[in-house]
């Protein structure tokens, strides 16, 4: 049985003005897997991630070519709905960025904006989302206290809960642990493993250990090109390209 990929990316090119950030990237991202993207700073992995929910659209003077299909549908088609896309493909940022509101209001933000649920259902949705982000047990009694009083690690899981509340299919994570200490990082990684039961996850990370620990597939970016993409196990034990081996063994980058 062959599974239909969640994302099919073909010959993706991306330019910031005159600078080309991505060169002919082609990759399939499979459902209910964690795909890790590694590579040195400025290699294009974050740019690539943001192409997947069109967050680059807001940056002026950029140009994109190639094709990205989400479950068969071209997300850059002229009639594609970006707001619906971003609801299905959510983004977790590098720094935890909860709103200066209560914990409850943070999680309820998306459903309220989208007008999907209200009242009792909203309470249940908030609880489910917090459970989904493995945060419920820590905040169940303090839902009305300010989100910014949480620790950074809890804030990051709150941001994940905020995302889960709009019921996405795909979760993109842009170095989600780079602002966190090792214990908080471990918790987020555990959470990622739980989340992949239900969601497709693409994570950009600077930590090769993290990629090795959590991901199923790993892609190595170098100067805007996808140098190698394979099972994480293969990438970290028997990489086929010399550059990949040099990077993961720490000889550069």
């Amino acid at each position, binding site marked *: 049985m062959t599974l239909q990929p969640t994302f099919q990316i073909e010959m993706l090119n991306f330019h910031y003005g005159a600078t080309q950030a991505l060169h002919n990237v082609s990759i399939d991202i499979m459902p209910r897997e964690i795909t890790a993207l590694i590579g040195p700073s400025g290699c294009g992995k974050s740019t690539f991630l943001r192409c997947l*929910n069109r*967050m680059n659209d*807001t940056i*002026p003077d950029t140009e994109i070519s190639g094709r990205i299909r989400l479950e068969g549908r071209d997300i850059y088609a002229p009639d594609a709905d970006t*707001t*619906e*896309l*971003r*609801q*299905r493909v*959510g*983004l977790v*940022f590098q*720094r935890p*960025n909860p*709103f*200066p509101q209560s914990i409850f209001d943070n999680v309820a*933000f*998306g459903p*309220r*904006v*989208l007008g999907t649920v209200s009242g009792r259902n909203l309470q249940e949705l908030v609880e489910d989302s917090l459970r989904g982000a493995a945060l419920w047990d820590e905040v169940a009694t303090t839902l009305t206290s*300010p989100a*910014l009083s949480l620790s950074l690690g809890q804030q990051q899981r709150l*941001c994940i809960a*905020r*995302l889960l509340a*709009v019921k996405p299919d795909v979760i993109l994570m842009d170095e989600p642990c780079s602002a966190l200490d090792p214990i908080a990082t471990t918790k987020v990684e555990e959470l990622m493993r739980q989340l992949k039961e239900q969601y497709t996850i693409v994570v950009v990370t600077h930590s090769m250990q993290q990629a090795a620990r959590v991901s199923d597939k790993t892609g190595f970016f170098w100067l805007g090109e996808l140098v190698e993409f394979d099972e994480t196990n293969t990438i970290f034990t028997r990489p086929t390209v010399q550059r990949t081996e040099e990077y993961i063994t720490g000889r550069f980058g």
Partner: protein
Amino acid sequence: MHLSRYQTERIAFMVIGSATLLTVAPIIIVISAIFISGAEAISWEFIVEMPRDGMRAGGIWPAIVGTTYLAIGTGLISVPLGLGAAIYLSEYARESAWTRTIRVAIVNLAGIPSVVYGLFGLGLFVLFLKLGSSIIAACLTLSIMTLPVIISTAEEALRAVPQSFRVVSIGMGGTRWQTIRRIVLPQAMPGILTGVILGLNRAAGETAPILFTGAAFFLPRLPSSIFDQTMALPYHLFVISTQVPGMPLQIQYGTASVLLVFVLTMNILAASVRSWQRRKRQW
């Protein structure tokens, strides 16, 4: 004479210290002089009664009501317009020659003397649009004067909201407008409110813009519609100080006190909104 560093320091400290004192002292002296001289005129009757004897006796109720009407009317016109413009400039417009021109225009608008607004209002609203000398014409004139203050403070307050809040909301499938309404506006609200209060405060205290557009010399009744003229505190004060012979001094001071209370209350309100916002804000 050569001074040591220590002496220079002391002299500099004294000079700037007395400069500060000199700016604060007149305010305190003026305010207390007016309140002390006005105190005997102030009574419940002075506030809520109509003027009598050619304004030489009775109260100043119509002027108080009139100034309140003018402030509210100006707010109703200038707040939606100003806020709309600020949202456009901060959230929608991309930086271009066009937006730069708008900003220059706003800054220049803020620098125009208020009497010029008055004459402009006379020409446009009173005569050309045939609104006559009326509350509505005065409010429109005051609104034009107030708009630059409201637009620039509101735009500043909107821009101060961290970009990441917008990105999160957009990234979750919110539209630009949903993002503004649910996140940006609520976060910017205290700053916007401060600007609105300061703007309306100026509108309430000005004489020149309403001189030709809606202020009545003497009208011993409350205005019955927005096309009526109205008395107003600043203009009333001007009239009784310069135009009415045999005017009892304490009534003049009493009127000045009421106007001051009006304006100071709004200033204090603006200041407390600002400090409340600073304490509340976590970004």
